């Protein structure tokens, strides 16, 4: 494992806990979806947890995050409460977006979590703009922009990369290369399948990272942020990973073999870190049990919170289309309890 970081046992266990929280939470979400508590699309991050957890560990509270429709893990890793995330997926007013957004549109202004974008590549220009705002206001913060490798073919990727590099804006681009865009393998969508190399063609430093290794992701993030802050310029991480589940709620997965999935599952970020801890850090089953049961409790709490949440009154249907006259961005008036 990468040793560039001074990683104490405590920190590694914290990272494991974060990944497990996401894993168990989403496993439960799949059940809740089957029970029709959660509706719409459900894009699970299972298998990719190391990326969000590795990157978030190195962001400050003032840094911005832009993510996609596959963002439950990012929201939890960023510190949104499991309560507010699950309540959002229930569509209740105590959800992080007051229930208006659902699974694909998690937002939290206090956590600088700018969603939750369901247009592939749509978040990239927004991230570049957030970074521009920081630069113009002389705030030394990074804007972390997560997106899948499928977004690379979109024109908005090209336009955002060029603007970020041309204007030297503090953006950390994180491409979560899970090999497929829905059913389309990378080789069927890019003439050049080395995404980091594509990023370099904009004159931006870019590296490929083992996205199944939380420590590698974290150390790559350290370097990236260092570079961004010293050069106020963008930096690009291509994290190689894999989605263990289907693309969304319904997916026959005709486009890949069970064997391929199994192969990647064995490299899974959670199991891998557990093994490593067990070998090197006197990490015993009892401790793992404690972590798991804490997570179980947190999840049960979240379910109760979501179940107890209120439905928005139909009379308020058209509320929140425009900012209320008073102008104060109306978290108080519109956003639910956390």
């Amino acid at each position, binding site marked *: 494992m990468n040793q560039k970081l001074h990683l104490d046992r405590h920190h590694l266990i914290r990272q494991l806990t974060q990944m497990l929280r996401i894993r168990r939470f989403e496993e439960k979400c799949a059940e809740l979806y089957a029970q029709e508590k959660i*509706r*719409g*699309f459900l894009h699970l991050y299972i298998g990719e947890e190391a990326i969000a957890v590795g990157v978030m560990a190195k962001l400050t509270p003032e840094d911005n995050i832009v993510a996609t429709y596959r963002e439950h893990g990012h929201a939890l890793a960023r510190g949104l409460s499991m309560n507010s995330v699950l309540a959002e997926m229930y*569509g*209740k007013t105590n959800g992080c977006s007051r*229930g*208006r*957004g*659902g699974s*694909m*549109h998690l937002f939290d202004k206090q956590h600088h979590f700018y969603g939750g*974008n*369901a*247009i*592939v*590549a*749509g978040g990239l220009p927004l991230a570049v703009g957030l970074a521009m705002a920081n630069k113009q206001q002389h705030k030394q913060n990074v804007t972390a922009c997560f997106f899948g490798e*499928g*977004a690379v*073919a*979109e*024109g*908005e990727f090209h336009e955002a990369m060029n603007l970020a590099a041309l204007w030297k804006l503090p953006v950390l681009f994180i491409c979560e290369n899970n090999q497929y*865009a*829905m*059913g*389309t*393998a990378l080789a*069927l*969508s*890019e003439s050049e399948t080395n995404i980091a190399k594509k990023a370099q063609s904009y004159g931006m430093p870019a590296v490929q990272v083992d996205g199944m290794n939380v420590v590698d992701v974290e150390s790559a993030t350290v370097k990236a942020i260092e570079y961004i802050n010293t050069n106020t310029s963008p930096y690009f991480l291509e994290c190689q990973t894999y989605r263990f589940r289907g693309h969304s709620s319904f*997916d*026959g997965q*005709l*486009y890949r073999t069970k064997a391929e999935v199994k192969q990647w599952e064995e490299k899974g970020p959670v199991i891998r870190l557990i093994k490593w801890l067990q070998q090197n850090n006197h990490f015993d089953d009892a401790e793992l049990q404690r972590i798991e049961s804490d997570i179980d409790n947190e999840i049960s709490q979240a379910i109760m919170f979501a179940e107890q949440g209120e*439905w*928005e009154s*139909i009379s308020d*249907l*058209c509320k*929140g*289309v425009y900012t209320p006259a008073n102008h104060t961005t109306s978290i108080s008036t519109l956003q639910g309890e956390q």
Partner: protein
Amino acid sequence: MTSQTLTYREALRASIEQALIEDDKVFLMGEDVGKYGGCYAVSKGLLDTYGAERIIDTPLCESGFVGVGIGAALGGMHPIVEIMTVNFSLLAMDQIINSAATMHHMSGGQLNVPIVIRMACGAGKQLAAQHSHSWENFYAHVPGLKVLSPATQNDARHMLGQALNDPDPVIIFEHVMLLNESGEVLDKPDADMEKALVRRQGQDISLITYGGCLHKALSAAEKLASLNINAEVIDLRCLRPLDTATILASVAKTHRAIIIDEGWMTGSIAGEISAIIMEQGFWFLDAPVKRLCTAEVPIPYPSHLEQAAIPQVETIITSAQAIMAGEQ
């Protein structure tokens, strides 16, 4: 005339398959139409039968592959281009409006663009504010385009073929809530693709609609019948050009109309039809034409809010009753 029962999805697939069989210049291109089988499983299985030359999975680049389809049409092919949903078609709007719709005219009539663009549309699946909209009106506004809205299984089965026989760009909207619905499919289209049809005869009030709202209007009409209100239901079918004659003939008979449209009201197709009736049917009217459209809000995620936002059978019934009772 043989008849069979198919789902709307099966009818669409059969129409694509027939086109592939009959015309070797036809191919299907879009995101995940091949290996994945289509985001709504419409093209499932076609890749195996027709191969990767004719069932083409594209990268995610709506403007790019729609533009490529337009170019291929200029080059003599008859592409069927699928944009997963109308929500993403905004990314391709420049190619559709500035290229496809203008080429024939800008070239003084030399070129034509025989492309068919299919896209899913509509709310009802709790997909929230970036995946649920009905923007047929954006395209129905544009000279050079033709816009179809199959609301029945038989139209789903035959309109693609009619569109491919048209030398100009045609856009077909497929409402996501219809895909699993079954109905009768004949071996002939109900009519010319540009013709509106009276789906139910009546003389008291005209319910004018299209796409995902047709079955709502029809079931409202059934309930109204039991209330002794005999509603006529018009299925527009083609949103550009509009079959004004059929609309006016109905209003001339009923003297009252409600337009049901899943688009947001402001600037909706419903507004256009109301304006047409104002201009050409004003003297027929015993009551102002009413519009039932989607509330002016990005579609919210929770089911109760989503359903509250879009037109419902109940509102059609109460509106019709109010108009018949002379309440405005």
